[in-house]
C-alpha cells in the first residue's frame, strides 16, 4: 500500500508525461511546418526580386514621376503601425516581442504628438491591444499561419487606401525577420511612404544590371503606377511569409525546451517518489520489528523472516 505522498508523486509524473507527449508532438509538427514555410518564402523571392528589378530599370530609365505613395510628409499627424503576429500561442516570446516593438512605435508617435492607427495581423496582437483599450483600425486573423498572396493583397490594399486618402502619413511594419533556423529578429521597417525608386532598388537588391535604354508602354509613369501597388503587396507578402516561418521556428524551439523540461521534471519526481517509497517501507518494517520485539521470545525472529519473505517482490 503506497503512502499518500508516493501516490501524489506518481500522479504528477503521469501528468508531466502526458504533457511531454503533447509538447513533443507539437515540436515535430512545427519542425515540418518551418521547412514548408521556408520553402514558400524562397519561392516568393523571384517575384520580389524581379519587381524590384523593374523599378531599378525605371529609375535608370529616368522615370521621374510623382506618385501618391511617394508623398513625403514632414508634419506627421497619424502613424500607421502594422504588426504581424500569430493566431496561436505556445511560440515562446514570438508574439510578445513583436507586440512590444509595435507598442514602442505607438508610444514614439504619441510623444511626437501624432495619432496612431493599428493594423493588426494575428489574433494575439488583437487580444493584447483590444484588452488594453487601444484603438484598432483593422484586424486580420486566420492568415498568419500560411499566408497567401490574396491575404497580402487584402491588407496592402487597405493600407495603401488609408495612405492615399491621407488618413495616415507614415506606416511602420513590425514583424519577425527570418534570418536562419536559429536566428529570428524582430524588425520595424518603414512601409510607407516609399523612398525614391533608386533607394528601393538598392534596398531590394534588384537582379538586373540596368544599362540599356528601355522602351515603356504605356509610359514610365504608367508602368510605375501599376507597379507600385504590386510592390507594396509583394513586400507585405514576403514579410508575412518570413513571419510565418519565424513563428514555426519559435514554436519548435519553445516546444523543444518544454519537452526537455518535462524530461528533467520526470527524473526529479521519480527520485522523490523512490525516496518516499523507501521511507514508507522502512517505517513499516520498523513498526513490525518493534512490535514483534515487544512481544518477546524466539517467536519474533520467525515473524520477521516471514514478513521479509512476503515482501520479497518489492525492492527494499
Amino acid at each position, binding site marked *: 500500500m503506497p503512502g499518500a505522498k508516493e501516490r501524489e508523486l506518481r500522479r504528477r509524473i503521469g501528468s508531466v508525461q502526458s504533457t511531454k507527449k503533447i509538447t513533443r508532438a507539437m515540436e515535430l509538427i512545427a519542425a515540418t511546418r518551418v521547412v514548408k514555410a521556408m520553402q*514558400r518564402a524562397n*519561392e*516568393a523571392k*523571384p*517575384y520580389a526580386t*524581379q*519587381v524590384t*528589378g*523593374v523599378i531599378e*530599370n*525605371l529609375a535608370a*530609365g529616368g522615370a521621374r514621376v510623382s506618385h501618391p505613395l511617394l508623398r513625403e510628409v514632414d508634419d506627421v499627424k497619424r502613424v500607421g503601425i502594422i504588426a504581424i503576429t500569430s493566431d496561436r500561442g505556445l511560440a515562446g516570446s514570438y508574439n510578445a516581442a513583436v507586440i512590444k516593438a509595435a507598442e514602442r512605435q505607438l508610444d514614439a508617435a504619441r510623444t511626437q504628438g501624432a495619432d496612431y492607427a493599428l493594423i493588426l495581423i494575428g489574433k494575439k496582437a488583437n487580444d493584447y491591444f483590444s484588452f488594453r483599450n487601444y484603438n484598432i483600425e483593422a484586424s486580420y486573423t486566420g492568415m498568419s499561419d500560411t499566408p*497567401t*498572396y490574396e491575404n*497580402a493583397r487584402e491588407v496592402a490594399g487597405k493600407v495603401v487606401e488609408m495612405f492615399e486618402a491621407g488618413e495616415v502619413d507614415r506606416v511602420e511594419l513590425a514583424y519577425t525577420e527570418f534570418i536562419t533556423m536559429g536566428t529570428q529578429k524582430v524588425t520595424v521597417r518603414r512601409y510607407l511612404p516609399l523612398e525614391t525608386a533608386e533607394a528601393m532598388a538598392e534596398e531590394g537588391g534588384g537582379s*538586373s544590371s540596368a544599362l*540599356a*535604354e*528601355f*522602351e*515603356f*508602354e*504605356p509610359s514610365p509613369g*504608367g*508602368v510605375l503606377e*501599376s*507597379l507600385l501597388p*504590386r510592390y507594396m*503587396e*509583394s513586400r507585405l*507578402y514576403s514579410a508575412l511569409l518570413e513571419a510565418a516561418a519565424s513563428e514555426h521556428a519559435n514554436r519548435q524551439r519553445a516546444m523543444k525546451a518544454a519537452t526537455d523540461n518535462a524530461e528533467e521534471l520526470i527524473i526529479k519526481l521519480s527520485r522523490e517518489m523512490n525516496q518516499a517509497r523507501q521511507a514508507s517501507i522502512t517505517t513499516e518494517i520498523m513498526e513490525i520489528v518493534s512490535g514483534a520485539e515487544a512481544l518477546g521470545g524466539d517467536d519474533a525472529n520467525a515473524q520477521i523472516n516471514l514478513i521479509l519473505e512476503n515482501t520479497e517482490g518489492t525492492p527494499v
Partner: protein
Amino acid sequence: MQVELVSPERITFSGEANKVLVRTVGGGDIEFLPGHVPFIGVLQVSAAKIVDGDQAEVFAIHQGFVQMSGDKVTILSDVSERKEDIDVARAQASKATAEAAISADAEDAAAKAALRRAEIRLGVASGELPA
C-alpha cells in the same frame, strides 16, 4: 532566349523559347523575338503564348508586367496559370455569376473584369489562344 513567368507565389515557367506573345494594356499584341529592344510594358488580362520551335504553351495571365532585357523575357503576373492548372468548372461558374451581375447592372466594372478573367481561363483551357 530565356523566358521566365513569375507569379508572387512561385515560378510558373522557366525555359528557352524563340517567341513570346503577350498583350499590353494599350490593347496591342506584342511579340518578342530574340534581340528585341529592351522593353517594359503593363499587361492586361489576357493569354500569353510561349513558343519554342514547334512547341507552344499558352498561359492565362491576370495582369502584370513584361520586361525584355538583354536576352531574357520576364513576365511578372499576379496570377499565371497553365492550361492543366485551370479549374474549368470554377471558371464556368464565375463566368455565369459575372454574366448575371452584368445583366443586372451593365456598368458593373468588377463583374466585367471577372467575366474577362473567366473567358481567358476558359479559352486557355480549351487549348486555343483567346482573343
